[in-house]
């Protein structure tokens, strides 16, 4: 249990854990605390925060409850972030493993595709993909993953290049395993840990990309997200800036929480030896 104690001793890690637990609780309890559609009109319009006990964070210009939107928005933001990052890591690890394991022309071709995805701004690609396929939750998830899978692919390939020379891979070849089976069952699981270490950065990036997409009106219109709340509040930015500022704070807490948590975890695993 040493790593756990190490983790609890790092103030960054604990702060990150608290932020994520807070948001996860908000996301999970949102349908219980605020049943029904968060996009439904609940009260008078443009109520400032802390003025009415029934609407602690006020209402927007259509009279929708900001706190309900914030909690339901946490659901959408975290779900999309985690789903997009999972797709990106899965695809990236798969492509990277195949490229590294196959070598030769296959490797060359796959890596040129990775290059191509890397030189196109991921956000433009997501914009184009959503505009072609229509805004729905799965499309947004895929669009974000489209710009995020190259990092894991490069890392997985680099790992595989070193792993495929190991003895156990040679042994698997000797007992007559199919190359595909070796790649997926022997090499991939061993190449995965460093790739998974990237996941915090990718989840954080995915949450931010989703927010930017829905800010530009390219998110699923039937789901309330923090980005769409900021865009909605922008219409009354001069008179009621809190409508845009509050969901943005949610975003900062989510992304910062992910970063701090991963920093605390990696420090705990590395045993705090990196103090100069």
């Amino acid at each position: 249990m040493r790593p756990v104690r190490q983790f609890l001793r790092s103030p960054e890690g604990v702060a990150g854990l608290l932020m994520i637990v807070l948001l996860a609780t908000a996301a999970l309890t949102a349908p219980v605390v605020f049943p029904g559609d968060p996009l439904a009109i609940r009260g008078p319009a443009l109520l400032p925060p802390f003025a009415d006990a029934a609407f602690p964070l006020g209402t927007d210009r259509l009279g929708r409850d900001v706190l309900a939107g914030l909690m339901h928005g946490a659901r959408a933001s975290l779900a999309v972030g985690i789903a997009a990052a999972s797709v990106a890591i899965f695809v990236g690890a798969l492509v990277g493993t195949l490229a590294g394991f196959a070598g030769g022309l296959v490797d060359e071709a796959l890596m040129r595709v990775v290059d191509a995805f890397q030189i196109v701004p991921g956000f433009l690609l997501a914009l184009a993909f959503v505009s072609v396929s229509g805004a729905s939750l799965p499309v947004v998830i895929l669009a974000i993953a489209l710009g995020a899978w190259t990092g894991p692919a490069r890392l997985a390939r680099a790992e595989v290049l070193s792993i495929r020379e190991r003895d156990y891979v040679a042994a698997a070849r000797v007992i007559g395993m199919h190359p595909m089976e070796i790649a997926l069952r022997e090499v991939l699981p061993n190449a995965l840990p460093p790739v998974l270490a990237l996941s915090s950065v990718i989840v954080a990036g995915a949450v931010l990309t989703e927010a930017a997409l829905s800010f530009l009106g390219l998110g699923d219109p039937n789901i309330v997200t923090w980005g769409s709340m900021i865009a909605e509040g922008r219409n009354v930015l001069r008179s009621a800036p809190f409508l845009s500022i509050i969901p943005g704070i949610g975003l900062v807490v989510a992304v910062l929480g992910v970063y701090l948590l991963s920093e605390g975890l990696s420090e705990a695993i590395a045993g705090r030896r990196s103090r100069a």
Partner: protein
Amino acid sequence: MRRAFLLLRRRLITSIPVLLIVVIGTFFLLEAAPGDAVDAYLLSIGGGDPALVAGLRESYGLDRSAWARLAAYLMALLRLDLGWSVLFGRPILDVVMERLPATLWLMGSAVALSFSLGSALGVVSGARPGSAADRLLSVGSLTLYAVPSFWLGLVLSVIFGVQLRWLPTAGLESIASGKQGFERALDIARHLVLPVAALGFIYMALFLRMMRAGMAEAWRQDFALAARARGLARRRIVLRHVARNALLPLVTMLGLQAASMLGGSVVIESVFAIPGFGRLAQEAVAGRDAALLIGIILVSAVLVIAVNLVVDVVYAVLDPRVGASEPAT
């Protein structure tokens, strides 16, 4: 210089197939979109009979297969012809080139701000790893890095544009002000302050963190110990030995971040109503102009390649080891 030239030539050759993949990929992605230019046109004029539809398709070449159209598109690209924008009724290359300068100003200023301020603060932070200043800057930069740039832009414009009324919050210059020369430049600069801050501060945090990590690493190396043993002043060790070695990875990072910065400016341009390249992308999406969108993606890919070429050359000049093993053909 010859080393840098060889490196440049090799990079240019390898970037051709990559660009080709980008063109073909985006072509088929947008090919998958429901409807074509003729459908959009018919919608705008309120429909037409089948003979008209077939005639239009033939005149636009839309009756041919996707592969034939791709081949025609690639041939046109060789003549630097990106096609015709239905939305603007002008050649796509003209539209893109008209919008590019605003974005380049925005990105260039943001890079200058983030790189200089980020590396300077990174030196402060990395001069004494673990000190109070370091802890403060680390937490501060991490928080800043978690802030979405478009939200930072909105908050900045509420504070400095709406509350304090110090700076303009929209556009690239005052409309019909009749300003010329230096006055006009000053006017544009004032309009750029908030968008550059919103885009640049996020990347400043990134450069700060990289500089700090690089310096912490350099402190552990033997040359830092040797410099200390020689009794050099701490200030001199920090600047001449430790910081200098940590600066190189920052140059690489600049190239890696070029694409994401270009993507980030799409949102920033929308927040501050800057008529730039990114705003054009959004207009192309809204106007369903697929050809324009392909052109935008292609030009941005070329831009990212160009930035990376510059970064490579700078790197080769700074670090004599790079490209030394290049075969001298």
